[in-house]
């Protein structure tokens, strides 16, 4: 052995150095410490000597002062001070333990009551991208975690899995600027897209200015994104104001308000309902997609299956559902429909003759303005 080491001394040294470097670097990365190892080593090397010198200096100093001046009082004071420090540290430790236990209990209760199948995971690190809001959890593909799965906690949604390793997964937080999810408000059932901003507040985009939404209204997951099951709390609308093209809605996320240590990964999501009442008490891999959520009751009534009225037309798709008149054409048809009702006239039927289209009172007419009536040549028409 000795012969071999001597004979291949250089190679051995090289290999040992490489291994040591890798181990140390790996240790540094994993520990994610802000202090460099060289500084740690330097401090570690210097500390014993400093401690010896400091002890000697202190002992000499204390000997003289304690012995000659306040030997008993100082000793007693020091003992009590040490005791107090110890108790304070113990108190802090117990408080942390209690918080952890409470969080774990809440997580456990939520996990048991949630219809979705979830997997508890610990947050073990943070991502390194500038501006990116990514955390690393201690569950990976070995535990069945897949890219695209939702990550939640009892008080709100947390993010989604973006990278999966055998024993760990990267979770993109909802505050990340690239994050988005479908949401719906609990009171006015306004649908929108939640987007991260890179800081603690998130926004809800693509809500028309005409749509009604009250500040303080809660947003829940809509299930449209096929990531989060429908009905999970997202946060409260803190600011609602009209924007240039869409409403500006700022939402305070209800999840990870008190830190982020334990989370739940939704392994098999089950869509739930959106609570009616404000939730003031609440806080090259395959992509996992949930089933589409069931339609809201209002959407079902607005878009009946089958033909629309007497026209025999296929029903409009959910997304194309329109509730109010859209153009002058729609408004004028409605006016004439109301005139027919007022005159008790069924259009196109023999009945009592033609109605008087000018007689009905209380119906606002969409007559052309005088200026509008001027005919135009299509070639000269302006856009």
């Amino acid at each position, binding site marked *: 052995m000795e012969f071999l080491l001597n004979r291949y001394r*250089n190679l051995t040294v*090289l290999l040992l150095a*490489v291994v040591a470097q890798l181990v140390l*670097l790996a240790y540094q990365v994993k520990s994610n410490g802000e202090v460099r190892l060289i500084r740690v080593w330097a401090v570690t090397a210097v500390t014993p000597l400093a401690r010896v010198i400091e002890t000697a200096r202190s002992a000499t100093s204390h000997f003289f002062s304690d012995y000659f001046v306040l030997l008993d009082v100082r000793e007693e004071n020091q003992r009590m001070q040490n005791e107090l420090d110890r108790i304070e540290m113990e108190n802090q430790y117990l408080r942390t333990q209690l918080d952890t236990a409470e969080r774990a209990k809440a997580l456990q209760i939520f996990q048991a009551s949630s219809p979705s199948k979830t997997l508890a995971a610990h947050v073990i690190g943070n*991502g*390194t*991208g*500038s*501006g990116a809001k*990514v955390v690393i959890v201690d569950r990976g593909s070995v535990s069945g975690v897949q890219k*695209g799965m939702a990550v939640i906690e009892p008080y709100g949604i947390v993010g989604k899995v973006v*990278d999966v390793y055998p024993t760990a997964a990267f979770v993109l937080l909802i505050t990340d*600027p*690239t*994050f988005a*999810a*479908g949401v719906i408000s609990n009171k006015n059932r306004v649908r929108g*897209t939640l*987007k991260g901003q890179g800081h603690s507040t998130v926004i809800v*985009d693509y809500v028309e200015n005409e749509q009604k939404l009250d500040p303080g209204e809660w947003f829940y997951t*809509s299930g*449209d*994104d096929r*990531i989060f099951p429908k009905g999970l709390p997202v946060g409260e609308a803190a600011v609602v104001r009209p924007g240039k*093209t869409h409403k500006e809605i700022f939402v305070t996320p209800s999840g990870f308000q008190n830190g982020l240590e334990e989370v739940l990964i939704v392994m098999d999501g089950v869509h739930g309902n959106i609570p009616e009442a404000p939730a003031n008490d609440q806080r090259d891999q395959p*992509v996992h*997609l949930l089933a*589409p959520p069931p339609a809201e009751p209002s959407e079902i009534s607005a878009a009946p299956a089958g033909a*629309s009225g*007497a*026209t025999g*037309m*296929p029903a409009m*798709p*959910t*997304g*194309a559902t*329109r509730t109010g008149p859209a*153009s002058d*054409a729609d408004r*004028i*048809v409605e006016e*004439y429909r109301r005139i*027919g009702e007022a005159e008790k006239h069924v*259009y*196109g039927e*023999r009945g009592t*003759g*033609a*109605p008087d*289209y*000018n007689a009905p009172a209380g119906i606002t007419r969409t*007559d*052309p303005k005088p*200026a509008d009536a001027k005919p135009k*040549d*299509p070639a*000269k*028409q302006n*856009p």
Partner: protein
Amino acid sequence: MLPTEEQRAQPDAPARIFKDDTRFALGRIAVFQYAAVTIFFVLITGFWVLQIRDRQSNNELAERNRVKTVPLLAPRGKILDRDGRVIVDNQPTFTVRLTRENLRMEHIPAIAAGLNLDPDDLRARVIRIQHQPKYVPMTLKQGLTPGELAFVESHRDPETFPELELIQSQGRLYPRDGFAAHVIGYVGEVSEQELNSADFAKYSQGDIVGKFGLERQYNDILTGVDGQRRVVVDSLGVERQRLENTDPVPGHALQLTIDLDLQAVAELAMEGKRGAIVALDPRNGEVLAMVSRPAFDPNLFATRIRNDDWKALTGDPQNPLMNRAIQAQFAPGSTFKPIETVAALDTGTIDENFTVVCNKGATFYGHFYHCDERHGALNLHQAIVHSCDTYFYTVGNKLGIDAIAEYADMAGLGKRTGIDLPGEASGLMPSPKWKLQTQHEKWYAGETISVAIGQGAVQVTPIQLATAIGGIAEGGVWYKPHLVRTDTQPEPLRRATWGASAIAASVNGMCGVVNEGGTGSSARINGIEVCGKTGTAQKVSLDLAKSGKVGRDLAKENGWFVGFAPKDNPEIVVVALWEASGHGYASAPIVRDVIKAYFDKKARLAMPKPQQIALFLRPQ
């Protein structure tokens, strides 16, 4: 050989030199080894730092300075009615495209599921355009719903589906419930087939073009010119710098001759019915209203129509995609009689006093031809008012097929009117020449008897009938029907040299139909002299209809009514076709409601507007 002085001074020099050289070489090797190790360490460390420790940061840096061209899609021109009121508008909408440079085929099922698309269809579309350059994106879906928008936004991150690209555009917003759907038409993504044709040569895959109706007919006018914005984006797709901007040019607005008031009434009058309405201004050919039912919802096409919806539309036996106003070809029945009247009088075959005795039919060439009623003795005017078939069998027999065909041809039957809509049907006005050419058979005299009452091989479209009767009401002047307004009075398409008395007799007869207790009495409007003619047209022979071998729908006659008002200098002519309604008089109230809407609006607009009176506040 003796050693030199130098060699004597260093007796063991060769051996020492050799020994020193070896040490020197070993020392150098050691230096090289340590240098190699150091370099190796530096490289390993660098690799570790770049590829593992700072991987995410470096990825961002690498992607940061990427120039991207964002298309700025031009909105199509609006479609307005004759008074400038909006029929078709635009609305902000989102379109998702597939950037094929970073497309991964295994993502297609998930993307299709999230966007409610058929994965097989999507895969086929991707394969179809494989020959195109990769930088040309493929439009996946337009007019995203809030849910689809959420799906795209939540999955288009670089880690999931980076091939998804979201752009804002202006989508079409059509009226609801198929209002004027056949006139307006719809838009859609240009097809491969269209791209290969000359008409669409200037378009690219993913472009939106008119597919049907006016959207197709005036596609070039309505289409704007897309702009583009070149921007520098970071890894998150956030714009960091704008390089250049080319603003989009919106399409031109299209002002139609359609009057929304009349169109609305016509739409309501046809609710629940199958057929068509055409209202024209006979003085210039302007189409005031055009309805075809059953209709379809063009909003289904404003986004990419779903396969299920398309199958439902194309598989519907009632054929909702057919514009019956210009494509339905049916026998005109008795609405043909006013034309035959003019022919008979103008050729001198009969005069207005010519009388026929109706015994609920008559026998010609050994075959008995039925009439609805036993009318007894009637002259021409009475025969028109009561729509006596026996009278017109007799007249037709005297006239002969050539004369009938000549006058019908002048009125515009059996040929396209030339309306500015694609897909107009030509109808058919039979003649001996036509029969010889198409069926290689001679014309039988008995066929003339059927043609004389608008049956047999005669087929017209509602637009043809409206144009034909409108031209007669105008004194023998026909204009090309059109849907887009112009500043200038159009030139007549044809001008007949028919005798004024012949035309007047026909017009008087039609006024009698409505106002003298005739078959079109339910079209009567107090204060407005409405004239018109009913038509009850069989779709199969009477014997076949009675045999029960055909369905009820085929056995039941189509009901026509063509009316115009006022009698002198008519301003509006309206045709209503109600399929399988059983009789023409059922269609008369439809025409009545539309004509009444026209004159009520005219009166309303003529009324002086109430003046606003300013009042000061009462002194305290």
